[in-house]
């Protein structure tokens, strides 16, 4: 039987190669996502382990695990003396650090577009850095910079740059370049070291310290020493074996990386899902074409089980080969992602890509499972072929399952899908299953349901869509009839395109709706004339000095600076904010529901209706907020306001903020201009101040809206690029089906040629057939996509999220056009094969 399996495989090289391509694409994404995160993880493993290279015990304020990215509380430097007195301590030194953005003296921002900008005091004890060039900072005004950043920005020892922290930007001279372990850089982050006096000032430490590095005496166990040191520490400060500390930091970091992993995995799985239709279709067609051969096997005594094993055996071999290639593709993909990251400024330390055993396992397993599941029904059909089929003249059409049963199955699957979808969208969850899982499962079930139902309406819908083609003449009519000739095949082929188009349409609708909503919201809420924001996204923040200096301008009548950071409420990480509340309501429109936002006290918070619903609290109720550095703190709800989409869900007073966050940066400043000051004059005045703080932008209402929308668009663009993959699989599906159909219709094509059809006419026929199938899939996908879009948006609206449904007609039409064009391209090779067909061989009678 294995011999037959191999023969079967070799006999269908081309079609199986195309099936393999689909498996390959999907597994590539699965493998790529793991390779990328493992590689980054490995690189950061190295960095983190060398980050505490010289230190045995690290003393830091405790921090909530889930909020490990929040800056830790500072503590009194007297602790250092107490630590030094502990038995077994060789040396101990306090250190302070924080975010430090960099710019050239003319204000050009260096780095910081995403990767962090780290600064710290240059100390003696447990300093992990190695000097690569120059000397250490010896006085205020001197600094060292990591060599990778220096190389990237073309900086050398002796040059001066601006360091922007909490105060005014300051000039520092680069006196040395540093590295960490074997690496010159920190994954795109910039790292500087300044002398302790400067550090205390620029990081606003006010004499306090962030951490103490402790070196143990020879032969002293760090873990035991940490326990010893703990006894002399005040509450909220903890001594930890430095290696453990490194691992803890790493864990937090890897969690952040996990997002990328999940993101890529989702696309890999969508691609594989789309592939199942393609794989199933290919095997089914091969089985149909081999009906007589398989019947012969049955006639000479092969059992059903053996026939099934033969088909599944073929599938297994294809799956393993394709998935193995997928691992290779994944490595390529990871390399491509790394390249993309580098292009956007995130210098990722070069190093070998990590291909873990788990990666190979995951890729092979998903490839295998998807392929076998897809091949199951064709294999079953193959096993049901009766031996008498061998004697029959023509290939018998596949047994028609009753339409009623098909309609029933499809409708049930689609129904379950819709139910799950809405359950998920309405935030329903059970143990271990998030709403997102419900939405995913619902969408999947709906897709399968529609795919099952599609053959029922392939003929009428396909003929309608193909009407303009058929109107062009005989060639067009032949193309249209060929397109709907085998409804099941057409349905399966168009399914991948349907999935791709549906998701693309969803992305387009969400993007367009967000755009429209952003415009409306900003027009509605934006009461101030101008807003000052850090440029770029992530990493950068505003020095609190900016607001102070802007307030002094005569052109400014009022301003409010808003700080944002993360805290945990009711088990979820939420963005909380702080501002002068009276000013806030003056410059940003909020709709008060209960209480008054502008009158909350330092022990009260104002929360959005969203959060009130999620955490199930109302006016006057207590609410516990877990802060990274100060732990659990209880507040009472002093006001409830209408949720405002992009803003924060919780506001507190500046005093409450300062008691619970170490960070003093501002996230944005809303500014109202004095009477009689024009927008342009005001902008000029503000820009004169912000120019001193590189990386600070002054925006008016329109620019702010554009800024907000450009970020949405970037995200949609990314989603789109990845969806192109699904379309690619749809494309391969069309190519595959066309090739198979052409092989099946060899005789017919020969006849057409014999009676005078030119090669060009044949090409046209095949191309139009592809276009009809592609457009068929795209139209189904579009319909589903619009439904998804509508479902998501209305669910959000039901959840009190202010969002307007907007359906971008032109873009959706463009999506159909793209599908049509992909059909044309997919038809190039099959059309060529059809037109090159040897007429004599085609009409030869058996």
């Amino acid at each position, binding site marked *: 039987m294995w011999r037959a399996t191999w023969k079967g495989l070799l006999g269908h090289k081309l079609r199986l190669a195309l099936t393999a391509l689909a498996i390959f694409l999907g597994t590539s994404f699965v493998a790529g996502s793991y390779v990328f995160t493992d590689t980054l993880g490995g690189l950061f493993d190295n960095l983190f382990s060398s980050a505490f290279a010289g230190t045995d015990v690290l003393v830091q304020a405790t921090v909530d695990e889930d909020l490990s990215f929040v800056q830790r509380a500072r503590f009194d430097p007297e602790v250092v003396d107490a630590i030094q007195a502990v038995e077994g301590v060789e040396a101990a030194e306090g250190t302070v650090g924080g975010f430090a953005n960099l710019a050239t003296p003319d204000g050009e921002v260096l780095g910081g577009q995403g990767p962090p900008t780290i600064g710290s005091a240059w100390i003696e004890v447990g300093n992990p850095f190695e000097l690569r060039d120059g000397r250490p900072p010896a006085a205020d005004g001197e600094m060292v910079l990591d060599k990778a950043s220096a190389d990237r920005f073309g900086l050398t020892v002796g040059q001066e740059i601006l360091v922007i922290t909490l105060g005014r930007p300051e000039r520092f001279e680069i006196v040395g370049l540093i590295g960490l372990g074997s690496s010159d850089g920190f994954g795109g982050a910039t790292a500087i070291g300044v002398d302790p006096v400067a550090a205390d000032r620029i990081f606003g430490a006010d004499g306090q310290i962030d951490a103490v590095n402790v070196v143990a005496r020879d032969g002293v166990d760090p873990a035991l020493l940490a326990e010893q040191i703990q006894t002399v520490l005040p509450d909220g400060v903890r001594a930890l074996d430095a290696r453990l500390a490194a691992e803890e930091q790493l864990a937090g970091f890897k969690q952040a990386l996990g997002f990328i992993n999940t993101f890529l995995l989702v696309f890999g799985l969508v691609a594989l899902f789309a592939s199942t239709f393609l794989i199933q279709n290919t095997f089914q067609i091969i089985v149909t074409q081999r009906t007589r051969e398989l019947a012969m096997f049955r006639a000479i005594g092969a059992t059903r089980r053996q026939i099934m094993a033969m088909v599944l055996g073929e599938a297994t071999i294809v799956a393993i080969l394709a998935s193995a290639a997928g691992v290779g593709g994944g490595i390529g993909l990871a390399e491509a992602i790394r390249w993309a990251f580098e292009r956007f400024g995130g210098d990722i330390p070069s190093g070998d890509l990590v291909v873990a055993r788990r990666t190979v396992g995951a890729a092979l397993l998903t490839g295998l499972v998807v392929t076998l599941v897809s091949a199951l029904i064709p294999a079953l059909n193959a096993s049901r072929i009766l031996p008498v089929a061998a004697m029959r003249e023509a290939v018998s059409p596949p047994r028609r399952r009753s339409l009623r049963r098909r309609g029933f199955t499809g409708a049930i699957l689609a129904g379950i899908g819709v139910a799950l979808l809405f359950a998920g969208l309405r935030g329903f969850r059970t143990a271990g299953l998030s709403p997102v899982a419900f939405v995913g499962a619902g969408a999947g079930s709906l897709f399968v349901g529609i795919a099952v139902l599609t053959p029922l309406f392939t003929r009428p819908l396909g003929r309608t869509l193909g009407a303009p083609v058929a109107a062009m003449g005989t060639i067009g*009519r032949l193309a249209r009839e060929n397109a709907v000739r085998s409804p099941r095949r057409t349905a399966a082929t168009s399914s991948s395109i349907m999935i791709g188009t549906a998701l693309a349409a969803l992305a387009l609708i969400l993007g367009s709706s967000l755009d429209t909503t952003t415009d409306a919201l900003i027009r509605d809420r934006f009461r101030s004339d101008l807003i000052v924001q850090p440029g770029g996204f992530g990493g950068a923040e505003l020095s609190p000095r900016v607001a102070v200096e802007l307030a002094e301008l005569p052109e400014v009548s009022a301003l409010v600076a808003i700080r944002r950071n993360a805290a945990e409420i009711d088990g979820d990480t939420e963005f909380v904010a702080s501002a002068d509340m009276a000013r806030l309501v003056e410059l940003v429109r909020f709709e008060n529901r209960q209480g008054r936002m502008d009158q909350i006290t330092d022990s009260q918070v104002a929360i959005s209706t969203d959060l009130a619903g999620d955490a199930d609290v109302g006016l006057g109720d207590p609410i516990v907020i877990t802060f990274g550095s100060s732990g659990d703190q209880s507040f009472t709800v002093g006001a409830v306001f209408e949720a405002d989409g992009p803003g924060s869900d919780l506001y507190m007073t500046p005093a409450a903020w300062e008691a619970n966050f170490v960070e003093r940066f501002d996230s944005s400043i809303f500014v109202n201009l004095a009477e009689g000051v024009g927008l342009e004059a005001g902008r000029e005045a503000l820009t004169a101040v912000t120019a001193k703080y590189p990386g600070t932008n002054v925006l008016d209402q329109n620019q702010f809206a554009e800024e907000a929308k450009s970020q949405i668009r970037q995200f949609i663009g990314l989603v789109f690029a990845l969806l192109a993959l699904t379309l690619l699989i749809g494309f391969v599906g069309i190519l595959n089906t066309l090739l198979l159909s052409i092989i099946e219709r060899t005789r017919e094509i020969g*006849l057409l040629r014999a009676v005078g059809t030119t090669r060009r006419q044949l090409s046209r026929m095949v191309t139009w057939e592809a276009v009809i199938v592609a457009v068929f899939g795209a139209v189904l996908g579009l319909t589903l996509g619009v439904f998804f879009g509508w479902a998501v948006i209305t669910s959000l609206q039901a959840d009190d999220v202010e969002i307007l449904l907007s359906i971008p007609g032109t873009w959706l039409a463009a999506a159909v056009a793209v599908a049509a064009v992909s059909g044309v391209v997919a038809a190039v090779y099959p059309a060529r094969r059809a037109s090159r067909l040897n007429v004599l061989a085609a*009409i030869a009678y058996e």
Partner: protein
Amino acid sequence: MPDIAASTERATKIYMSGPAEVRALDDVTVAFHKGRFSAIMGPSGSGKSTLLHCLAGLDSVTGGKVYLGEQDLGTLSDRELTLLRRSRVGFIFQAFNLIPTLNATENITLPTDIAGRRPDRTWFNRVIDVLGLGDRLTHRPSELSGGQQQRVAVARALVARPDIIFADEPSGNLDSKSGAQLLGFLRRAVDDLGQTIVMVTHDPVAAAYADRVVFLADGRVVDELESPTSDAILDRIKSLET
């Protein structure tokens, strides 16, 4: 020779199958006259189909010349040959004559449709009439019997009014009654409609419908018979075998 519809001049066709060469046609010189019904007979592998394909411009000879009317087929490109088949040649194969997605009418008008021409209505009706297909025109091939399918194929060959029709064992797949009926139609097409038909057959009874029989063996023309009867043909075959 204005009344010659198709002819070969010392035509040779050599197939290379592995190391051995097969002479499917070996120095064949033969001519088929207009307005006549000719049959080609011979044992299996004697080159009947090959000769037919070369005459029809579906295949090319290795040596010698093939003419359709006055046109030397050897000088034509693939596209020119296609256009020539479209307008001047009709085909009837043993089976698989029809496009399954097209109905009978569409199959019949396929060559003219492909050429972008309109079929001559009165001629179309006459052909349909002669072949008795009037009530089957909207049926698809799967809804027609084998005999009806072959009649549709004959209609297709006739409606384009080609210079010559080639038929390769057109009755080979039919029972004797439908076969006889079909051959009767071919005969009428020549007698009543003035067509020229060249037909390959194994069956002496079928060949007896023709005006003339050409006998092939091992790629050579070995004999001819004018106005044959099936008995005369059988005799001739026997004498050739010995």
